[in-house]
């Protein structure tokens, strides 16, 4: 799974893009984020508030109950502030 981080999520996690294998138990966006939070303190901090996080799966906005699977491109970012 390809995961992208933007804006302060990129800064807090220290990562802009990564390819990782997620466990099969991760089946939706919420599951993915909860799993990512357990990686280390930076992720724990960056992903602590669901309300300040938006997600896109394969470049389409997705809700937290949207399914994710290996091969997907998932982007995690704060609400957009526009142009």
């Amino acid at each position, binding site marked *: 799974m390809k995961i992208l981080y933007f804006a302060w999520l990129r800064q807090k996690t220290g990562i802009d893009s990564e390819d990782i294998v997620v466990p099969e138990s991760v089946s939706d966006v919420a599951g993915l984020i909860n799993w990512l939070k357990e990686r280390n303190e930076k992720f724990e901090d960056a992903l602590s508030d669901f309300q300040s996080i938006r997600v896109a799966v394969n470049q389409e906005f997705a809700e937290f109950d949207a399914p994710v699977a290996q091969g997907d491109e998932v*982007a995690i*970012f704060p609400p957009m502030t526009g142009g």
Partner: protein
Amino acid sequence: MVVRVQKEDFDVGAELTTLTGGKTAVGGITSFVGLVRDLGGESALKAMTLEHYPGMTEKMLGEIESEANDRWPLEASLIVHRYGRLEPGDRIVLVATASAHRHAAFDSCAFLIDWLKTRAPFWKLEETDGDGARWVESKQSDDRAAGRWGKEAAE
């Protein structure tokens, strides 16, 4: 319909001439140029860095431009959006719509820029004299402005 997301500045005159060249059914072009604004106040803005999601940005901009073309009888339309570090007075975005009828050109251009100001996948990092750098938070007034167009455009 043209969408470009680029680091470089653009030449408004050249863009508009290219947009409508040879299309004699066009009666008018409405365009909006967004600039980096320094509202003054306690801490002056030094610069703003726009970050975006390459690929998704172009896709979303293309979808909203397509919606504008469905809603209004446009002969041509253009969105050019910059990213990267910009200073006060720099151009950020150009939206232009051309139609046989000026009200169609006005309404579609306003629709597009209202959308871009809220829904486009850009994030702003502001550098001020006082506070250093901080990420701008989403504004509700912009959401309302985009909301007045009715349906949830391109989401």
